[in-house]
Protein backbone atom coordinates (compact mmCIF):
# COMPACT_ATOMS: atom_id res chain seq x y z
CA UNK A 1 0.00 0.00 0.00
CA UNK A 2 1.42 3.39 -0.91
CA UNK A 3 1.52 6.16 1.64
CA UNK A 4 0.78 9.67 0.57
CA UNK A 5 1.97 12.76 2.38
CA UNK A 6 -1.26 14.66 1.82
CA UNK A 7 -3.08 15.19 5.09
CA UNK A 8 -6.63 13.92 5.10
CA UNK A 9 -8.79 16.43 6.95
CA UNK A 10 -11.16 13.71 8.24
CA UNK A 11 -8.70 11.05 9.27
CA UNK A 12 -6.63 11.73 12.38
CA UNK A 13 -2.86 11.84 12.21
CA UNK A 14 -1.25 8.42 12.50
CA UNK A 15 2.41 9.15 13.23
CA UNK A 16 3.40 5.51 13.68
CA UNK A 17 1.36 4.13 10.80
CA UNK A 18 -0.52 1.92 13.25
CA UNK A 19 -2.85 -0.78 11.96
CA UNK A 20 -6.45 -1.14 13.11
CA UNK A 21 -7.43 -2.36 16.59
CA UNK A 22 -8.65 -5.84 15.66
CA UNK A 23 -9.57 -6.71 19.25
CA UNK A 24 -11.83 -4.65 21.43
CA UNK A 25 -12.20 -5.48 25.11
CA UNK A 26 -15.25 -3.85 26.67
CA UNK A 27 -14.83 -3.88 30.43
CA UNK A 28 -18.43 -3.09 31.18
CA UNK A 29 -18.09 -2.76 34.95
CA UNK A 30 -15.70 -3.26 37.84
CA UNK A 31 -18.57 -4.61 39.96
CA UNK A 32 -18.18 -8.33 40.74
CA UNK A 33 -19.62 -10.73 43.29
CA UNK A 34 -16.28 -12.55 43.57
CA UNK A 35 -13.11 -11.47 45.35
CA UNK A 36 -10.30 -13.35 43.57
CA UNK A 37 -6.95 -12.21 44.96
CA UNK A 38 -5.37 -12.18 41.48
CA UNK A 39 -7.97 -9.96 39.80
CA UNK A 40 -6.57 -7.88 36.94
CA UNK A 41 -8.76 -4.89 37.78
CA UNK A 42 -6.95 -1.87 39.23
CA UNK A 43 -6.34 -1.86 42.98
CA UNK A 44 -8.35 1.33 43.33
CA UNK A 45 -11.29 0.11 41.21
CA UNK A 46 -13.75 1.23 43.89
CA UNK A 47 -12.75 4.81 43.10
CA UNK A 48 -14.00 4.55 39.53
CA UNK A 49 -16.87 6.83 38.89
CA UNK A 50 -19.81 6.56 36.60
CA UNK A 51 -19.94 3.65 34.18
CA UNK A 52 -20.61 4.34 30.52
CA UNK A 53 -24.30 4.29 29.62
CA UNK A 54 -25.83 1.89 27.12
CA UNK A 55 -25.80 4.60 24.45
CA UNK A 56 -22.14 5.38 25.12
CA UNK A 57 -21.20 1.71 24.81
CA UNK A 58 -23.18 1.38 21.58
CA UNK A 59 -21.26 4.32 20.17
CA UNK A 60 -17.92 2.72 21.19
CA UNK A 61 -18.96 -0.56 19.55
CA UNK A 62 -19.97 1.16 16.32
CA UNK A 63 -16.79 3.19 16.08
CA UNK A 64 -14.58 0.22 16.95
CA UNK A 65 -16.20 -1.95 14.32
CA UNK A 66 -15.84 0.78 11.72
CA UNK A 67 -12.13 0.92 12.50
CA UNK A 68 -11.83 -2.83 11.89
CA UNK A 69 -12.31 -4.48 15.28
CA UNK A 70 -13.63 -8.01 14.72
CA UNK A 71 -13.20 -9.71 18.08
CA UNK A 72 -15.14 -8.25 20.97
CA UNK A 73 -14.87 -9.33 24.59
CA UNK A 74 -17.48 -8.37 27.16
CA UNK A 75 -15.61 -8.47 30.41
CA UNK A 76 -15.38 -6.73 33.75
CA UNK A 77 -15.65 -7.12 36.75
CA UNK A 78 -18.61 -9.34 36.12
CA UNK A 79 -20.32 -8.17 32.91
CA UNK A 80 -23.58 -9.91 33.89
CA UNK A 81 -24.09 -7.20 36.48
CA UNK A 82 -25.00 -4.86 33.60
CA UNK A 83 -28.73 -4.99 32.94
CA UNK A 84 -28.19 -3.94 29.31
CA UNK A 85 -25.91 -6.85 28.41
CA UNK A 86 -28.37 -8.57 26.05
CA UNK A 87 -28.93 -5.26 24.27
CA UNK A 88 -25.19 -4.70 23.85
CA UNK A 89 -24.69 -8.27 22.59
CA UNK A 90 -27.44 -7.81 20.00
CA UNK A 91 -25.96 -4.53 18.79
CA UNK A 92 -22.44 -6.01 18.62
CA UNK A 93 -23.58 -9.07 16.71
CA UNK A 94 -25.56 -6.91 14.32
CA UNK A 95 -22.40 -4.90 13.65
CA UNK A 96 -20.54 -8.10 12.72
CA UNK A 97 -18.39 -8.63 15.78
CA UNK A 98 -17.51 -12.08 17.04
CA UNK A 99 -18.89 -11.68 20.54
CA UNK A 100 -17.28 -13.29 23.57
CA UNK A 101 -18.75 -13.16 27.06
CA UNK A 102 -16.10 -13.56 29.74
CA UNK A 103 -17.88 -14.39 32.96
CA UNK A 104 -17.56 -15.92 36.41
CA UNK A 105 -20.92 -17.59 35.79
CA UNK A 106 -22.37 -15.85 38.85
CA UNK A 107 -25.59 -14.11 37.95
CA UNK A 108 -26.03 -16.31 34.91
CA UNK A 109 -29.25 -18.31 34.49
CA UNK A 110 -30.45 -20.75 31.88
CA UNK A 111 -32.89 -18.11 30.70
CA UNK A 112 -30.04 -15.64 30.18
CA UNK A 113 -27.92 -18.24 28.40
CA UNK A 114 -30.80 -18.68 25.94
CA UNK A 115 -31.59 -14.96 25.68
CA UNK A 116 -27.95 -14.18 24.86
CA UNK A 117 -27.94 -16.89 22.17
CA UNK A 118 -31.03 -15.26 20.74
CA UNK A 119 -29.23 -11.92 20.77
CA UNK A 120 -26.41 -13.52 18.77
CA UNK A 121 -23.73 -14.19 21.38
CA UNK A 122 -21.03 -16.35 19.80
CA UNK A 123 -19.22 -17.75 22.80
CA UNK A 124 -19.15 -17.89 26.59
CA UNK A 125 -16.04 -18.30 28.67
CA UNK A 126 -16.65 -19.41 32.24
CA UNK A 127 -13.88 -18.99 34.80
CA UNK A 128 -13.26 -21.45 37.61
CA UNK A 129 -10.91 -21.07 40.55
CA UNK A 130 -10.22 -24.77 41.25
CA UNK A 131 -11.46 -28.28 40.50
CA UNK A 132 -13.23 -28.77 43.84
CA UNK A 133 -15.80 -26.64 45.67
CA UNK A 134 -13.80 -26.05 48.81
CA UNK A 135 -10.73 -24.51 47.21
CA UNK A 136 -12.74 -22.83 44.45
CA UNK A 137 -14.98 -21.03 46.90
CA UNK A 138 -12.12 -20.08 49.21
CA UNK A 139 -10.24 -18.41 46.34
CA UNK A 140 -13.38 -16.76 44.94
CA UNK A 141 -14.50 -15.57 48.35
CA UNK A 142 -18.00 -16.94 47.72
CA UNK A 143 -19.61 -20.01 49.25
CA UNK A 144 -21.95 -20.79 46.38
CA UNK A 145 -19.61 -20.08 43.48
CA UNK A 146 -18.54 -23.59 42.47
CA UNK A 147 -21.99 -25.20 42.20
CA UNK A 148 -23.25 -22.23 40.23
CA UNK A 149 -20.28 -22.42 37.83
CA UNK A 150 -20.84 -26.12 37.24
CA UNK A 151 -24.52 -25.58 36.55
CA UNK A 152 -23.80 -22.74 34.17
CA UNK A 153 -21.04 -24.59 32.31
CA UNK A 154 -23.60 -27.34 31.70
CA UNK A 155 -26.20 -24.81 30.57
CA UNK A 156 -23.73 -23.17 28.18
CA UNK A 157 -22.91 -26.53 26.66
CA UNK A 158 -26.57 -27.52 26.50
CA UNK A 159 -27.38 -24.37 24.56
CA UNK A 160 -24.78 -25.37 21.97
CA UNK A 161 -22.24 -22.59 22.50
CA UNK A 162 -18.57 -23.31 22.05
CA UNK A 163 -17.22 -23.30 25.59
CA UNK A 164 -13.95 -22.05 26.96
CA UNK A 165 -13.21 -22.84 30.59
CA UNK A 166 -10.60 -20.65 32.20
CA UNK A 167 -8.57 -21.48 35.29
CA UNK A 168 -6.06 -19.05 36.75
CA UNK A 169 -3.25 -21.23 38.05
CA UNK A 170 -1.22 -20.39 41.14
CA UNK A 171 0.61 -22.19 43.95
CA UNK A 172 -2.62 -23.15 45.73
CA UNK A 173 -4.27 -24.98 42.81
CA UNK A 174 -1.35 -26.02 40.61
CA UNK A 175 -1.39 -29.51 42.18
CA UNK A 176 -4.90 -29.99 40.70
CA UNK A 177 -3.95 -29.86 37.02
CA UNK A 178 -5.12 -33.39 36.23
CA UNK A 179 -8.37 -32.94 38.15
CA UNK A 180 -8.97 -29.63 36.41
CA UNK A 181 -8.42 -31.06 32.93
CA UNK A 182 -10.60 -34.06 33.61
CA UNK A 183 -13.37 -31.83 35.00
CA UNK A 184 -13.18 -29.81 31.78
CA UNK A 185 -13.36 -32.94 29.67
CA UNK A 186 -16.44 -34.13 31.58
CA UNK A 187 -18.09 -30.75 31.08
CA UNK A 188 -17.36 -30.93 27.35
CA UNK A 189 -15.15 -27.85 27.10
CA UNK A 190 -13.86 -26.96 23.63
CA UNK A 191 -10.94 -24.95 24.97
CA UNK A 192 -9.32 -24.94 28.37
CA UNK A 193 -7.18 -22.01 29.37
CA UNK A 194 -4.77 -22.88 32.14
CA UNK A 195 -3.42 -19.42 32.68
CA UNK A 196 -0.67 -19.15 35.21
CA UNK A 197 -1.12 -15.98 37.17
CA UNK A 198 0.42 -12.83 35.76
CA UNK A 199 1.48 -10.36 38.39
CA UNK A 200 -0.39 -7.13 37.85
CA UNK A 201 -3.11 -5.44 39.86
CA UNK A 202 -4.19 -7.56 42.81
CA UNK A 203 -1.93 -10.43 41.78
CA UNK A 204 1.13 -8.19 42.13
CA UNK A 205 0.08 -7.33 45.68
CA UNK A 206 -0.28 -11.04 46.39
CA UNK A 207 2.64 -12.29 44.34
CA UNK A 208 4.47 -14.06 47.14
CA UNK A 209 1.35 -15.92 48.10
CA UNK A 210 0.46 -16.90 44.53
CA UNK A 211 3.60 -17.62 42.56
CA UNK A 212 4.31 -21.33 42.06
CA UNK A 213 7.80 -22.71 42.53
CA UNK A 214 9.82 -23.87 39.55
CA UNK A 215 9.34 -27.49 40.63
CA UNK A 216 5.55 -27.06 40.78
CA UNK A 217 5.57 -25.48 37.37
CA UNK A 218 7.69 -28.15 35.70
CA UNK A 219 5.40 -30.83 37.04
CA UNK A 220 2.27 -28.99 35.90
CA UNK A 221 3.66 -28.57 32.42
CA UNK A 222 4.44 -32.29 32.20
CA UNK A 223 0.92 -33.13 33.30
CA UNK A 224 -0.56 -30.84 30.66
CA UNK A 225 1.63 -32.32 27.92
CA UNK A 226 0.69 -35.86 28.90
CA UNK A 227 -2.99 -34.99 29.00
CA UNK A 228 -2.73 -33.29 25.62
CA UNK A 229 -1.23 -36.43 24.10
CA UNK A 230 -4.03 -38.50 25.56
CA UNK A 231 -6.62 -36.13 24.05
CA UNK A 232 -4.95 -36.29 20.68
CA UNK A 233 -4.91 -40.08 20.69
CA UNK A 234 -8.59 -40.25 21.54
CA UNK A 235 -9.41 -37.76 18.77
CA UNK A 236 -10.85 -35.26 21.24
CA UNK A 237 -11.26 -31.71 19.97
CA UNK A 238 -10.66 -30.22 23.43
CA UNK A 239 -7.73 -27.84 23.25
CA UNK A 240 -5.48 -27.15 26.21
CA UNK A 241 -3.83 -23.77 26.35
CA UNK A 242 -1.20 -23.56 29.07
CA UNK A 243 0.07 -20.06 29.70
CA UNK A 244 3.42 -20.19 31.47
CA UNK A 245 4.38 -17.41 33.84
CA UNK A 246 6.93 -15.07 32.35
CA UNK A 247 8.69 -14.80 35.72
CA UNK A 248 10.35 -18.09 34.77
CA UNK A 249 11.54 -16.90 31.36
CA UNK A 250 14.82 -15.30 30.34
CA UNK A 251 13.28 -13.20 27.60
CA UNK A 252 10.12 -11.12 27.94
CA UNK A 253 6.85 -11.77 26.17
CA UNK A 254 5.84 -9.64 23.19
CA UNK A 255 3.25 -8.03 25.40
CA UNK A 256 -0.10 -7.42 23.64
CA UNK A 257 1.74 -8.04 20.34
CA UNK A 258 3.07 -4.54 20.77
CA UNK A 259 1.67 -1.43 22.41
CA UNK A 260 -1.35 -0.03 20.58
CA UNK A 261 -0.94 -2.61 17.85
CA UNK A 262 -4.00 -4.91 17.99
CA UNK A 263 -5.71 -4.49 21.34
CA UNK A 264 -7.95 -1.73 22.56
CA UNK A 265 -9.52 -1.89 26.00
CA UNK A 266 -12.26 0.42 27.13
CA UNK A 267 -12.63 0.52 30.92
CA UNK A 268 -16.01 0.90 32.69
CA UNK A 269 -15.67 4.69 32.97
CA UNK A 270 -14.68 5.09 29.31
CA UNK A 271 -10.91 5.27 29.78
CA UNK A 272 -9.28 3.80 26.68
CA UNK A 273 -6.22 1.63 27.31
CA UNK A 274 -3.74 -0.37 25.20
CA UNK A 275 -4.26 -3.28 27.63
CA UNK A 276 -6.40 -3.92 30.67
CA UNK A 277 -3.49 -3.41 33.08
CA UNK A 278 -2.12 -0.20 31.59
CA UNK A 279 -4.21 1.95 33.90
CA UNK A 280 -1.56 1.46 36.57
CA UNK A 281 1.01 3.33 34.43
CA UNK A 282 1.71 7.02 35.08
CA UNK A 283 0.35 7.94 31.64
CA UNK A 284 -2.65 10.07 30.88
CA UNK A 285 -5.01 7.87 28.90
CA UNK A 286 -7.87 9.37 26.90
CA UNK A 287 -11.55 8.79 27.58
CA UNK A 288 -14.17 7.92 24.97
CA UNK A 289 -16.39 10.59 26.54
CA UNK A 290 -13.91 13.31 25.56
CA UNK A 291 -12.32 12.04 22.36
CA UNK A 292 -13.34 10.15 19.27
CA UNK A 293 -12.23 6.50 19.32
CA UNK A 294 -10.36 6.88 16.04
CA UNK A 295 -8.34 9.84 17.36
CA UNK A 296 -7.72 7.96 20.60
CA UNK A 297 -6.26 4.98 18.76
CA UNK A 298 -4.21 6.73 16.11
CA UNK A 299 -3.44 10.13 17.46
CA UNK A 300 -3.54 10.32 21.28
CA UNK A 301 -0.28 10.71 23.23
CA UNK A 302 -1.31 7.80 25.49
CA UNK A 303 -1.61 5.32 22.60
CA UNK A 304 1.50 6.62 20.82
CA UNK A 305 3.59 6.61 23.99
CA UNK A 306 5.26 3.25 23.37
CA UNK A 307 4.69 2.75 19.66
CA UNK A 308 7.83 2.37 17.57
CA UNK A 309 11.17 2.07 19.39
CA UNK A 310 12.50 5.60 19.80
CA UNK A 311 11.41 5.57 23.47
CA UNK A 312 13.65 2.61 24.31
CA UNK A 313 16.65 3.01 26.60
CA UNK A 314 19.43 0.42 26.77
CA UNK A 315 19.62 -2.56 26.81
CA UNK A 316 16.59 -2.60 24.45
CA UNK A 317 17.73 0.20 22.14
CA UNK A 318 20.65 -1.73 20.65
CA UNK A 319 19.13 -5.19 21.16
CA UNK A 320 18.64 -7.33 18.07
CA UNK A 321 15.49 -8.85 19.60
CA UNK A 322 13.65 -5.56 20.10
CA UNK A 323 11.38 -6.09 17.13
CA UNK A 324 10.47 -9.52 18.44
CA UNK A 325 9.43 -8.63 21.99
CA UNK A 326 9.22 -4.80 21.93
CA UNK A 327 11.12 -4.72 25.23
CA UNK A 328 8.41 -6.79 26.95
CA UNK A 329 5.68 -5.49 29.19
CA UNK A 330 5.54 -1.82 30.19
CA UNK A 331 3.43 -2.57 33.27
CA UNK A 332 5.92 -5.14 34.51
CA UNK A 333 8.80 -2.72 33.91
CA UNK A 334 6.97 -0.06 35.91
CA UNK A 335 5.93 -2.33 38.77
CA UNK A 336 9.40 -3.83 39.19
CA UNK A 337 11.72 -0.91 38.36
CA UNK A 338 9.61 2.21 38.93
CA UNK A 339 10.16 3.33 35.33
CA UNK A 340 7.92 1.99 32.59
CA UNK A 341 10.52 2.84 29.89
CA UNK A 342 12.93 0.22 31.19
CA UNK A 343 13.37 -3.22 29.72
CA UNK A 344 10.96 -5.73 31.21
CA UNK A 345 13.06 -7.22 34.06
CA UNK A 346 12.06 -10.71 32.93
CA UNK A 347 14.82 -10.21 30.37
CA UNK A 348 18.18 -11.49 31.58
CA UNK A 349 19.78 -8.45 29.92
CA UNK A 350 17.89 -6.12 32.27
CA UNK A 351 19.94 -4.70 35.15
CA UNK A 352 16.87 -5.36 37.32
CA UNK A 353 16.63 -9.07 36.44
CA UNK A 354 17.78 -9.87 40.00
CA UNK A 355 14.28 -8.84 41.16
CA UNK A 356 12.81 -11.66 39.09
CA UNK A 357 15.41 -14.06 40.44
CA UNK A 358 14.52 -12.96 43.98
CA UNK A 359 10.82 -13.63 43.31
CA UNK A 360 11.66 -17.13 42.04
CA UNK A 361 13.72 -17.79 45.14
CA UNK A 362 10.91 -16.55 47.36
CA UNK A 363 8.51 -18.91 45.57
CA UNK A 364 10.69 -21.84 46.56
CA UNK A 365 10.26 -20.99 50.22
CA UNK A 366 6.80 -19.38 50.36
CA UNK A 367 4.53 -20.59 53.13
CA UNK A 368 1.63 -18.11 53.03
CA UNK A 369 -1.80 -19.71 53.11
CA UNK A 370 -4.90 -18.59 51.26
CA UNK A 371 -6.17 -16.64 54.24
CA UNK A 372 -3.14 -14.38 54.16
CA UNK A 373 -3.88 -13.04 50.68
CA UNK A 374 -5.45 -9.62 50.09
CA UNK A 375 -8.86 -10.30 48.55
CA UNK A 376 -10.28 -8.10 45.82
CA UNK A 377 -13.24 -6.29 47.30
CA UNK A 378 -14.43 -2.73 47.73
CA UNK A 379 -13.21 -2.42 51.32
CA UNK A 380 -9.69 -3.51 50.43
CA UNK A 381 -9.78 -1.36 47.30
CA UNK A 382 -10.55 1.76 49.34
CA UNK A 383 -7.37 1.16 51.34
CA UNK A 384 -5.39 1.71 48.15
CA UNK A 385 -6.72 5.14 47.34
CA UNK A 386 -7.11 6.44 50.84
CA UNK A 387 -3.41 5.79 51.14
Amino acid at each position, binding site marked *: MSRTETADPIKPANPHNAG*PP*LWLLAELTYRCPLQCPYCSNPLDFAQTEKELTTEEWVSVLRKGRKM*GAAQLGFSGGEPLVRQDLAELIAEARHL*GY*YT*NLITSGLGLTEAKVDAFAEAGL*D*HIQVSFQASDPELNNAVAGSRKAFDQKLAMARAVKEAGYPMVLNFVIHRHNIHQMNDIMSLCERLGADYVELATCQYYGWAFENREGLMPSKAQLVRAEQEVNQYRERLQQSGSAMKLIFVTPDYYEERPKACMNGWGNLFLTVAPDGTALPCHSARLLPIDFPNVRDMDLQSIWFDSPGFNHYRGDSWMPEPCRSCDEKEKDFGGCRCQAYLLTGNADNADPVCSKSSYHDRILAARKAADHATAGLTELVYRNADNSRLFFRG
Partner: protein
Amino acid sequence: MHEVPRFRRGFRFQWEPAQESYVLLYPEGMVKLNGSAGAILNEVDGQRSVADIVTSLEQQFPDAGPLGKDVSEFLQDARQQHWIELS
Protein backbone atom coordinates in the same frame (compact mmCIF):
# COMPACT_ATOMS: atom_id res chain seq x y z
CA MET B 1 -15.67 -36.00 -2.55
CA HIS B 2 -19.26 -36.78 -1.52
CA GLU B 3 -18.74 -35.39 1.94
CA VAL B 4 -20.37 -32.11 2.86
CA PRO B 5 -18.24 -29.64 4.81
CA ARG B 6 -19.78 -27.26 7.32
CA PHE B 7 -18.27 -24.86 9.83
CA ARG B 8 -18.15 -26.09 13.39
CA ARG B 9 -20.43 -24.30 15.77
CA GLY B 10 -18.63 -21.24 17.06
CA PHE B 11 -16.62 -20.71 13.87
CA ARG B 12 -17.59 -17.80 11.68
CA PHE B 13 -16.24 -16.98 8.27
CA GLN B 14 -16.54 -13.42 7.05
CA TRP B 15 -15.01 -10.70 4.90
CA GLU B 16 -13.18 -8.00 6.83
CA PRO B 17 -12.75 -4.77 4.84
CA ALA B 18 -10.15 -3.37 7.27
CA GLN B 19 -7.93 -6.41 6.65
CA GLU B 20 -8.91 -6.73 3.00
CA SER B 21 -9.32 -10.44 3.48
CA TYR B 22 -11.58 -13.24 4.62
CA VAL B 23 -11.11 -14.26 8.23
CA LEU B 24 -12.22 -17.17 10.35
CA LEU B 25 -13.39 -16.12 13.78
CA TYR B 26 -13.68 -18.45 16.77
CA PRO B 27 -13.65 -18.10 20.55
CA GLU B 28 -11.12 -15.38 21.31
CA GLY B 29 -9.27 -16.02 18.09
CA MET B 30 -9.05 -15.04 14.45
CA VAL B 31 -7.26 -16.50 11.43
CA LYS B 32 -6.58 -14.21 8.51
CA LEU B 33 -7.03 -16.35 5.41
CA ASN B 34 -4.96 -16.14 2.26
CA GLY B 35 -6.67 -15.81 -1.11
CA SER B 36 -7.14 -19.49 -1.92
CA ALA B 37 -8.17 -20.50 1.61
CA GLY B 38 -10.72 -17.67 1.54
CA ALA B 39 -12.03 -18.71 -1.87
CA ILE B 40 -12.50 -22.33 -0.77
CA LEU B 41 -14.12 -21.58 2.58
CA ASN B 42 -16.39 -19.05 0.88
CA GLU B 43 -18.02 -22.05 -0.86
CA VAL B 44 -18.73 -23.91 2.39
CA ASP B 45 -22.44 -23.62 3.10
CA GLY B 46 -23.30 -26.89 4.81
CA GLN B 47 -25.25 -27.98 1.69
CA ARG B 48 -22.78 -28.62 -1.09
CA SER B 49 -20.32 -31.48 -1.25
CA VAL B 50 -16.58 -31.24 -1.77
CA ALA B 51 -17.15 -32.24 -5.41
CA ASP B 52 -19.68 -29.40 -5.87
CA ILE B 53 -17.20 -26.96 -4.37
CA VAL B 54 -14.43 -28.12 -6.70
CA THR B 55 -16.69 -27.68 -9.72
CA SER B 56 -17.69 -24.21 -8.62
CA LEU B 57 -14.08 -23.14 -8.03
CA GLU B 58 -12.92 -24.57 -11.37
CA GLN B 59 -15.60 -22.47 -13.05
CA GLN B 60 -14.53 -19.36 -11.16
CA PHE B 61 -10.82 -19.89 -11.85
CA PRO B 62 -10.65 -21.55 -15.29
CA ASP B 63 -6.92 -20.81 -15.65
CA ALA B 64 -6.05 -22.69 -12.47
CA GLY B 65 -6.47 -26.16 -13.97
CA PRO B 66 -7.92 -29.11 -12.00
CA LEU B 67 -8.42 -28.16 -8.33
CA GLY B 68 -9.75 -31.40 -6.80
CA LYS B 69 -6.57 -32.41 -5.04
CA ASP B 70 -5.76 -28.98 -3.57
CA VAL B 71 -9.30 -28.38 -2.39
CA SER B 72 -9.73 -31.72 -0.66
CA GLU B 73 -6.30 -31.49 0.95
CA PHE B 74 -7.14 -28.04 2.26
CA LEU B 75 -10.51 -29.19 3.61
CA GLN B 76 -8.93 -32.21 5.32
CA ASP B 77 -6.46 -29.86 6.91
CA ALA B 78 -9.27 -27.54 8.00
CA ARG B 79 -10.96 -30.52 9.60
CA GLN B 80 -7.79 -31.43 11.47
CA GLN B 81 -7.69 -27.89 12.78
CA HIS B 82 -11.28 -28.45 13.93
CA TRP B 83 -12.52 -25.50 11.85
CA ILE B 84 -15.00 -27.59 9.86
CA GLU B 85 -16.78 -30.91 10.03
CA LEU B 86 -17.16 -33.26 7.06
CA SER B 87 -20.18 -35.51 6.97
